[in-house]
């Protein structure tokens, strides 16, 4: 196990900056997820840590050692690729033993470590098969087995589950979590799936356009998004985000609709300020069908016509236009709603978020 430190890390491709001077400290044994839309620089960052991509500027430290110019083999890392990258001409056993064989470890030790890894990942019966004879989930496990056999300082995962179908992905997610509990290690996990990031990581790093938008625990990034982008990216269905203008204790939306300015922002904004108002689907619901608001929470009701509903069984997502935005509301204990039906909606303003329309940064409330 080791810490990983990125300082002002930069990657340029010609004139394009793919990673723009990011700083990141990863603690020993920590599970960190890099998450963001495609092209945000998360994979490039991971590949720079792995040594597969040269760095254009800044420093990378693994433990106390500066590894900027070390080749991948000298960094004591393991990586699980999106494509798994199993060696097709070797059996599962040979795949897992490959790194130890290259390192010229004694055969007894190789056998012991392969046996240990295959026991953890339930690969015992597959050891003599070729990768082409395995299913997607099995290949995925072999790729992880190949990584843990090395006992590296740091594990790197590059979207390891994105080639699996939805059911298997959920299953492997749990397996990775169990694995991390059983084999404590520093993990850097790249994904574009915010659910994976939320469920697996101790801390989440949200990236966009080569920059870090926010670093925080899953709780942090969900409850206290630092920017409008993070607010829209984390959470499913995504947060309702609507442009508004502050006017005398109220938020004015388009089409003449408005909501009262949440109490907690009273001291933080001045009339005329353009903002983005955010409220999660959990915090807006047909009255009587939501989570109970915190005691003393500020709520407000509006009559809105429903446009579409998506019943999910235990809950129903209700889509309703208001102020120029199609709001998504989560309805618990659902009852059938018809399209066009007018519904009394409760907005839980105590849970609201405000972002500057100009910079996108969160406005701190009381």
């Amino acid at each position, binding site marked *: 196990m080791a810490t990983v430190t990125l300082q002002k890390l930069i990657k340029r491709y010609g004139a394009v900056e793919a990673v723009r001077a990011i700083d990141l400290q990863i603690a020993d044994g920590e599970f960190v997820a890099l998450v963001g839309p495609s092209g945000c620089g998360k994979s490039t960052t991971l590949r720079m840590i*792995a*040594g*597969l991509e040269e760095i254009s500027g800044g420093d990378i430290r693994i433990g106390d050692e500066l590894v900027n110019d070390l*080749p*991948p*083999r000298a960094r004591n*890392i*393991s*990586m699980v*690729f999106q*494509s*798994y*990258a*199993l*060696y*097709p*001409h070797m059996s599962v056993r040979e795949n897992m033993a*490959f*790194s130890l064989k*290259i*390192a010229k470890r004694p055969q007894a030790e190789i056998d012991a470590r392969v046996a240990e890894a295959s026991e953890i990942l339930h690969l015992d019966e597959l050891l003599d098969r*070729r*990768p*082409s*004879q*395995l299913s*997607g989930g099995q*290949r995925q496990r072999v790729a992880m087995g*190949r990584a843990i056999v*090395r006992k590296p300082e740091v594990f790197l995962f590059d979207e390891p589950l994105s*080639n699996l179908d939805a059911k298997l992905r959920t299953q492997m997610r749990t397996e990775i979590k169990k694995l991390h509990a059983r084999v404590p290690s520093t993990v850097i996990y790249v994904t574009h799936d915010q659910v994976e990031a939320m469920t697996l990581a101790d801390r989440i790093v949200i990236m966009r356009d080569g920059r870090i938008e926010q670093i925080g625990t899953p709780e942090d990034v969900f409850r206290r998004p630092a920017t409008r982008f993070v607010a829209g990216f984390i959470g499913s269905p995504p947060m309702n985000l609507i442009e508004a203008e502050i006017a005398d204790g109220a938020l004015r939306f388009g089409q003449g609709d408005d909501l009262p300015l949440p109490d907690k922002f009273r001291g933080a904004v001045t009339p005329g300020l353009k903002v983005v108002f955010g409220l999660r689907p959990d915090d807006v619901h047909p009255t009587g069908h939501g989570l109970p608001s915190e005691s003393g929470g500020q709520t407000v009701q509006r009559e809105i016509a429903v446009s579409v509903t998506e019943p999910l069984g235990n809950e129903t997502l209700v889509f309703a236009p208001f102020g120029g935005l199609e709001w998504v509301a989560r309805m618990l204990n659902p009852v059938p709603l018809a399209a066009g039906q007018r519904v009394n909606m409760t907005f839980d303003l105590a849970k609201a978020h405000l972002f500057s329309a100009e910079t996108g940064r969160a406005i701190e409330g009381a």
Partner: protein
Amino acid sequence: MNRNSASRRFHLMVRIAHVAALFLAMLIICAPGAWIIMNSLRPTVEIMAKPAVWIPRELNLDAYRSMFSVVGQGGIPVWAYFRNSLIISATSTAIAIAIGMSGGYAFARFRFPGKSAWFLGLMLSRTVPGIALSLPLFIVYARLGIIDTHLALIVAYVALNVPFTIWLIDGFFRQVPRDLAEAAQIDGCTRWQAFWQVEFPLAGPGIASSAIFAFLTSWNEFALASQLTRSVNSKTLPVGLLDYTAEFTIDWRGMCALAVVMVAPALALTFVIQKRLVSGLTFGAVKG
């Protein structure tokens, strides 16, 4: 019921048509080969007979016997020609594959300035017919004093084969996912080790087929060899065929016999290696 049997009959007819068409095609492809083998076994009279004699009346190995007999008594220096052919083909193939592997790998994996121009240039060099170069080549070789040496033909054949081997091997390396070499490097390999441990074995069948191709090109080449060789020092088997032409006669039987002797090793080599040309070896490396 009726429609079922009609359909079955139709499919049977199609199958028969397929087989018949295949048989016909194979017949056309194989006929010259079979004719050569047959002609090497029967007297010239019968070969030249008009109308053609399709079913041989007499078969013997006289042509082979006399080919390997003493030079001057109808024999030709087959072993010398064979040795020349082997040395020249094997050496030029080895060199062409070594260059082709380096070149193909570079084209498949690296970005460098002028890459597509280089590639196009290599391909364009294939458009020049080899025979057009024989005179300039002859003059240059004459000045260098390497006419009638192994070196002369080896150099010419390497030049002939390199563009093609680079092009073929480039394609095979492209099929090996880049991730594999990267995974190997993370697993502790140097770039060099990653190449030999992972990329080379996976591109191996492709490289072998390029080698067959290069070898056969050199083995069968006649036009340049006939210009650049003079004596048993460097004459190759195809050029050796000319030994059967005299001022007024052509010994068709002997020529056919030598052709058979010439084809045999090439055929054997292809047969041995083609078993290893299993494609689809990379299947399962990445998401299948």
